[in-house]
């Protein structure tokens, strides 16, 4: 592991609009090389936080430190902004060619033509848009335009990259291919990034740490596993989804499915992923069934684990059962089944879920 130093730190940040506090972050830091995702619903303050961190809008109060040095409103803002790059939800391209768009930030910095050309070509190639170099930005598809916007940001070789829902207005196939490319490029370049999204799977896939935001506050910040499995309050729990999130490593393959080792247990998952790769598994609680009898009638579920009931939360029409199977697992059980199986906290049960009922997020071999 690389030793991580703090690259950006925020103290007592407060943003007001029309006299009302719309963002309040007492403290917050980003380490070099990490990818932090900000997740939350619309209006949670993700965009405001990004724009304040990049000093595009002035905070009402608070301090921002970049590599330990305070960013001051008047003299060091330009210097600071030239170390970062930002990609918005809209591509916001200029009415010129793709090449000129990607070179715009470098031109602003007064870089020499030859050097610009070299850097731009590298980024165009990296984002697979070299063939569009001379095309007008007005004729690009949504995906091509967003690739251009990302290339423009990466051409600056930013020390920190801000991404404000860059995929939110793309259709799913375009989004997936761009997400995959961005993931590789972020890994290759080891760029520190802050990534706002409302899509939990995007956040899981790209980030090392997650910050859950709502109503202008950061409710929880931690690794995806921490946030997903140990939400600090009900709101976070309902927003990040109730499903079980497990991290593991692919240790075996068999036809159309693979086996992932999760805290010593083996879970079978349908999918094709290379051995040794790290994966995140998401299991929705409605897909987990419980039984108490050891002599179980035949189930088609490939994953059956003995476990113990830790906690039961009533959700009205059904109950949410937290289990410990060596790894945490959550199941929804109807009130009728609760009575029939006479489930209570502390008793031993068997939990089953199908190999097809698991959403897989690849995390790459490193990390």
């Amino acid at each position, binding site marked *: 592991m690389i030793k991580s130093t703090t690259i950006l730190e925020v103290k007592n940040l407060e943003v007001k609009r029309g006299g009302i506090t719309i963002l309040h972050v007492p403290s917050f830091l980003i380490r070099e090389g990490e990818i932090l995702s900000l997740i939350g619903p619309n209006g949670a303050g993700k965009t405001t936080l990004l*724009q304040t961190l*990049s000093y*595009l809008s002035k905070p009402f109060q608070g301090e921002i430190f970049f590599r330990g040095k305070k960013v001051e409103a008047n003299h060091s803002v*330009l210097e600071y*902004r*030239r170390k*970062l*790059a*930002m990609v*918005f939800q*809209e591509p*916001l391209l*200029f*009415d*010129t*060619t793709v090449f000129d768009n990607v070179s*715009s*930030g470098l031109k*602003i*910095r007064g870089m020499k033509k030859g050097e610009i050309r070299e850097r731009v070509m590298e980024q165009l190639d990296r984002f697979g848009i070299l063939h569009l170099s*001379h*095309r*007008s930005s007005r*004729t690009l598809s949504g995906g091509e335009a967003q690739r251009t916007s990302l290339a*423009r940001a990466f051409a*600056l070789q930013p020390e920190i990259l*801000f991404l404000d829902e860059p995929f939110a207005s793309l259709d799913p196939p375009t989004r997936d291919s761009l997400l995959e490319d961005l993931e590789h490029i972020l890994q290759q370049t080891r760029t520190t990034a802050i990534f706002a999204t409302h899509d939990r799977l995007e956040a899981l896939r790209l980030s090392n740490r997650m910050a859950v935001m709502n109503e202008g506050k950061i409710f929880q910040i931690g690794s995806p596993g921490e946030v997903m499995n140990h939400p600090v309050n009900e709101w976070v729990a309902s927003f990040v989804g109730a499903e079980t999130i497990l991290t593991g490593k692919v240790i075996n393959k068999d036809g159309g499915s693979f086996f992932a080792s999760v805290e010593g247990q083996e879970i079978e998952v349908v999918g094709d992923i290379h051995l040794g790769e790290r994966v995140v598994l998401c299991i929705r609680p409605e897909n987990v069934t419980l039984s108490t009898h050891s002599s179980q009638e035949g189930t088609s579920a490939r994953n059956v684990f003995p476990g113990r009931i830790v906690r039961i939360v009533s959700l009205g029409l059904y109950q949410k059962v937290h289990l410990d199977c060596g790894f945490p697992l959550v199941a929804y059980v109807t009130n009728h089944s609760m009575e029939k199986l006479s489930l209570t906290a502390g008793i031993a049960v068997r939990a089953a879920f199908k190999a097809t009922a698991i959403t897989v997020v690849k995390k790459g071999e490193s990390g």
Partner: protein
Amino acid sequence: MDLILEGIRKAFWLLVTFDPEVMGITFLSLKISGSATLISMFIGISLGTSIALSRFPGRRVVVSLINTGMGLPPVVVGLFVTIFLWRNGPLGFFRILYTPTAMIIAQAIIATPIVMGITLAAIQQLPQKLRLQIFALGATRFQMVWILIKEAKLPLLAAVMAGFGGVISEVGASIMVGGNIKGYSRVLTTATVMETSRGNFDVAIALGIILFMLAFFVNLILTQIQQKERPR
């Protein structure tokens, strides 16, 4: 009908023979209206852009005034410029009433609100976030404004064309502050008015055709620049 045909024949004759008086009038028209347009371009684009990008109390009133100014009646401008430049007027000491300079001033006053109003609209219709994106690319405030102006270059050229079109065809102010002095401050429009009132319809038609062609060619050139080499 004969009147028109005779006019066209005469106009053709005046053109192919490069009639010195007509040529002089044409060049003066072009010089005065061109200078006025240039002045209005600098003032209109810079002020229009700054107003589009800033927020201050009373901004709405200012914008309404500019929009009203886009339809400023030339005779009213002529009247006030005359009053100001009158021998005993506040700026009388310049002694420039009935000179081409006075005409340039009057025409610039007519064209500036036109250029400013269209500039204002053009800059405002650019997405708000574009400014943030330009700043995020590391631009200084000056660079940001320059990039926005380049982004709005098509409507801005339209603004310049509208400004030029407004002053080359204007007659009221020119005749009031220029005086229509032969060989000195006589331009196409004032000459046309004079020849028409004298009953010299043939010459008036010739001048009218030249005026129309002049406006057409200047706009053709500007349109060429505007539509030039837009990448595919």
